[in-house]
Each structure stands twice: as structure tokens, then as C-alpha cells.
């Protein structure tokens, strides 16, 4: 293959024919994290403590110590995160194939439905409607679910009520369908988890986690700027931190979008 693909890409990036969209939320102490019943273990929120800031702790330099759980902010879920993926090979963030870290993405826009119903469930019918317009979801693609949930913040974003969180997400059938019938590489959402807020009551519970990780596929959550992506023609870069035996990690998610595909 003599064609200089990377050279062409560099030229397209420089010339603006390919845009980069940052799909990442800023890591701040205030960003909600998943909440478990208090007697269970909890994911540590993002925290930053100053080591020095051009002061007695370090006269010429500024730096901080960070602490956070693996599943904080915009983050990646590896198969080992769920029991269904625990025995798979290469199932943690340090061992997963680097080739899986760059892949095409299909964007399915369910923002209108989610605006009307916080418990909106994404179904096979929504996928079918999307495929009627844009064609079959290619194998090893990400499916990103746009809900515009990332435009909310604080209490509205977490939307915790006495009976748990109420945020949109996939039903069990669509997750089985996407993994088994479409061979997706992963599923991404704007909410705190890949699953719906009430997904603990589904069968199986937390179907996105159940099916994705059981088949060695990945999850992305707390994504932002999905409203700036076209339905197809996007390539996303998702390289989690290389944490030994890590179940996931915060990461920077970059989308490469070819201008003409916005048409």
C-alpha cells in the first residue's frame, strides 16, 4: 500500500477537512459519580490536592496529587469490569489490544425522546429506524447514544430520586442485539453509566454491562458533545490509562469527523 494515508490525514487535519471533536467532560470534584447503597464499596470521586504552586512546597513549579476511582468522569469500561467478562483473555485496560482503541462510531440520536422521558429506553426499533436511513451498523463500530444528557449538570444530571436514578439508556434486548447481531466494539452514553438509571431492575440487571463485557466489548460513559457528531463517518480514539489489571479508567475521547460527512 503505497498511498500515504497518514500523510493525507495530517493534511486533512491541517486543512480542516477533518475536525477533532472532544467528547470528554472536564474532571472536576463536583462531577457526579455512580452511587451505590452506602453499605457497599464506593467509587472515589475526583479529588485534587496541591503539592506545590510556586511556593514553599516547590518554589518554581505547580503540580497536584490526584485521586479518583477507575469509573470517574468520562471513562472507559473494560470487559473485566463485569463478572460476565472476568474470564476472557486480554480483558483489562492494560492488556486490551491497542487496535481496539481507534474505531468508527455510529451516532444514534435519541435526544428528543430523552427530553420527554428521563426513563427513555433505547430499543431495537430505534436501531432499525436508524439503519433504515443510514445503513447497517458496521461490525466493530461503536454505537454512541445521544441523549443530550451531558448538557445537564449536578442534581439534574444524576437525577437521583428515592427509588434510584432516572436516566435514559438501553433495554436488555437492544444490547443483546447490538453485541450479537451487529458485532459492535462498544457502546457509549452521556449518562453516568452505559446502562439506564433503573437498569438494576431489568433482566438481566445492567444489560449493557452484562452483554458488552461478557462478549469482550467495551463501554464509554459521561461523554459530551455528541450533538456535534454526524450519524456516520466518525472515528473515535479511546485509549484508557494502562493500569495493571484495571477495570476501566478516565480518558480523553477524541472524535475525528470528516467535514463532508456533516452534509
Amino acid at each position, binding site marked *: 500500500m503505497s498511498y500515504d494515508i497518514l500523510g493525507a490525514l495530517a493534511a486533512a487535519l491541517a486543512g480542516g477537512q477533518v475536525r477533532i471533536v472532544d467528547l470528554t467532560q472536564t474532571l472536576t*470534584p463536583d462531577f*457526579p459519580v455512580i*452511587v451505590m447503597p*452506602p*453499605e457497599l*464499596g*464506593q467509587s*472515589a*470521586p475526583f*479529588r*485534587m*490536592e*496541591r503539592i506545590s504552586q510556586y511556593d514553599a512546597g516547590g518554589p518554581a513549579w505547580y503540580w497536584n496529587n490526584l485521586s479518583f476511582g477507575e469509573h470517574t468522569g468520562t471513562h472507559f469500561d473494560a470487559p473485566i469490569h463485569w463478572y460476565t467478562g472476568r474470564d476472557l483473555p486480554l480483558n483489562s485496560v492494560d492488556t486490551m489490544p491497542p487496535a481496539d482503541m481507534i474505531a468508527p462510531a455510529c451516532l444514534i440520536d435519541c435526544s428528543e425522546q430523552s427530553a420527554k422521558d428521563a426513563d427513555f429506553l433505547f430499543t431495537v426499533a430505534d436501531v432499525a429506524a436508524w439503519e433504515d436511513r443510514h445503513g447497517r451498523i458496521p461490525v466493530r463500530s461503536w454505537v454512541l447514544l445521544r441523549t443530550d444528557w451531558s448538557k445537564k449538570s*449536578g*442534581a439534574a*444530571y*444524576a437525577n*437521583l*430520586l*428515592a427509588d434510584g436514578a432516572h436516566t435514559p439508556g438501553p433495554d436488555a434486548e437492544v444490547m443483546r442485539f447490538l453485541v450479537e447481531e451487529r458485532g459492535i466494539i462498544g457502546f457509549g452514553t452521556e449518562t453516568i453509566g452505559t446502562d439506564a438509571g433503573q437498569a438494576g431492575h431489568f433482566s438481566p440487571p445492567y444489560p449493557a454491562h452484562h452483554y458488552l463485557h461478557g462478549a469482550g466489548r467495551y463501554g464509554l460513559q459521561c461523554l459530551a458533545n455528541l450533538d456535534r457528531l454526524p450519524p456516520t463517518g466518525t472515528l473515535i480514539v479511546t485509549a484508557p490509562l494502562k493500569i495493571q489489571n484495571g477495570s476501566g479508567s478516565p480518558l480523553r475521547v477524541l472524535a475525528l469527523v470528516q467535514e463532508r460527512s456533516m452534509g
Partner: protein
Amino acid sequence: MTEALARPKHKNPLARTTQPLLPPSARSRKAHGLTLAASVGRFMLQCCGECGKYAYPVREACPNCLSPDLRFQDAPTGGTLISETRIEVTSDPYYREHMPWRTGLVKLDCGPSAVVHLHGDCGGPGSPLTLTLQLDRAGQAVFFAHPISETPNMEDDPQWRELTADPKHRRVLISDGRSPVAVALALALKKAGAARIFVGIADRWKPFSEQAALEAVEGVELVDLDLTSERSVQELAMDLGAKVEILINTADHVRPAHLFDAGAANSAREAMDHTVMGLMRLAQAFGPVMRSRGADGATGAVAWVNVLSIHGLSSVPQFGVHSAVQAACLSLSQWLRGELRQGGIRVVNAFAGPLDTEWFQTVPPPKVVPKTLADAIVDGLRRGLEDIYVGDVAKDIAARLFDNPKAVEREAGQ
């Protein structure tokens, strides 16, 4: 008659804030028997084990029979004023700021005579008086004499206010509004005349059932405060640091864990972060400014209360993480006490037994209801206490620790 303390006006921004000074504080080691009594609101003097006579000033041997068997024990609180002196001029830097100052020589009902600070409503020589031992701004024990019956506004006497931490017209910060004691504290502080009650809430995105009850208390203002975040604590101090005269740290994080559980280290670290490190972050952010405002007028900064568990003094296996964390908090609190004393700020430790809340659900009674704890804290502030033991379990453990700490350790959890 004492004049009612008026609500303070806004400070003149052109006037320099008066810097805190401390009264003379040298005491003998023996004299700290009085400090111990004053810290818990008891009136104790040395009493001879042989002849039964009370002695004062504090000494090594009985002035009556020369026996060395002088022990501190509770003494009758009555006395009669022999003479009084209204001090108009002094060379002592602390008292110069508080002139005139009323003192008296009192004949105690139990025998000895003592020089005391006199409440403004005490009558002249020959008047009967009630005595208490108080901690002054330097943390040392002094005698204070009140009239035997209540007089109008007697709690507003300026000399008495120097020896207490009355919330009246002061602004209070409750550090953790999700604490089971927060609502009861807000109500008790309001009743005690607190000017404003700031209540810190972490993770505002997580709803909690007491929010409406807190907001319903007049004078309460909910503010963002997450003790596990250095930035959050510092940002609140930037806004409110110079507006907090009493800080009540209600942070706790009770999670059951067994020492040998795989997840126990996580539980311990989380609890340490919420409570020990939380207290440290609070101290770093609010300590310096409170210490600098220890003499800022009649309603200047005055007290820092840590709500602690009695199990910080003696571990209980069922709540081992909680006990360890509370012990660390107590140590940190003593450190803070030493730092804040330089500004005349009192650090109060309120030790409670198990609270009647969800995390102590499986613990049998007696348990402390939040209102009892809140009322005890406000009472302690108004009386100028330093250590408060709330509830039967805390009082029992405190008394047994005083008697035989090893027995308390062996019997814990049995």
C-alpha cells in the same frame, strides 16, 4: 442589671481588627486539677483525705493537718462575698482591653477563700454567691461568681461572655448538613440566638430528606462544602472564613467493617478522608482566620466544636474503623486546640455514645437522640465547657476510663 447584648453592627472596614491577647496562663501541674474540673463544668477543689477539709489555693499538702492526701473532689458551690474590687487600670495587656473588670474576694462555704471574677449583677460585700470554675481565654481555670438567683440578661454580662462561647448573635458553620444531628443543632442554635447558621452540604446532586427541615429553620443558609475536597473547603473559607464565629464539625462516616475483611482498608481510608482529613482541611482553611478574630468585638470568633464518638477514647470491635478514625480525630482536635488557643478560641470536644441513627441500628439502647446531642453542645457553649460527654454510654465510658482504662479495653464489645 445586665444590659441586653445588642446585635452587632457591621464592622467599620477602616478600623483595625483587635488582635487577640491572652490572660496570664502560668499554672502548676497540680493546679490542672482545677482545669480538669472546669473543662467538664464541675466545681472541684482539693479535699484532705485525712481531716476532710477543703484547701485552696492548690498545694501539695493539707494546710490543716499537713497530710499529703489531697485529692480533687466535687465541692459545694456556695460562697459569700467578702470584698470587691473594680479594676479600672492594669498593666496586663489582656485585661487592659476589658477595663473595667470586677473581681472579688469570696469566702467559700466549704472553707477556703478565693479571688474570683464577679458577675456584674452580684451584690456588694456580704452577698451570697454561686461559684463555678471556668476556662478563660488561655484555657486555664478561674473562679467565677454569679448571683444565687437569675437576673435579667445575666448571660450577656461581658465578663461572663469572655469565659463562655455563647452562640447569641454569633454566626455558626455546621460542617456537614447530612449529619443526623444537623437539623437539631440548627434548631438549638437558632433558639440560642445565633445570628446566622451556615450549613455545609456535600454533593448537592444527591438529594437528602432533611434538606427541607434545614431550610425551614430561620437563619439557616445551605452552602456547598465537601470535606473530602480541599478546593471545596478552601473556596467556602474564601467566602465565609471571616464570618464564622463558631464552627461545629459534625462530619462522621460510620461504615461497619471487620478488620480482616478484604474491603476494610477502603472503608478505613474513606472514613479517614471524610473525618480526619476533613477536619484537617477545615482546620487549614478556617483555623487561621478564626484565630485572628478571637478578639473581634463582643461577638468575635470564639469556639470550634468537634462532634466525636466516645469510641475514640476506647475502641469497640463492632465499629473498629469508626473507633480508630475517632481516635485520630481526637488527636487532631488536641493539636487544633493548641493552635487555636493562641487566639483565645476554645476547641470543644463533644463525645457521644452511639446515636439513634441508621448506622447504629443494630446497637441496643441506650442511644443518643440527635436533639440531646445538639442541646448538650449548645449548653456546653453557653457554659464555656471544653469536653462534653453526651448520653449514658459516653458518660459511663468516660467515668470508667478515669477509674481503670485497662478494664474498659478488656470489656469493650463483650
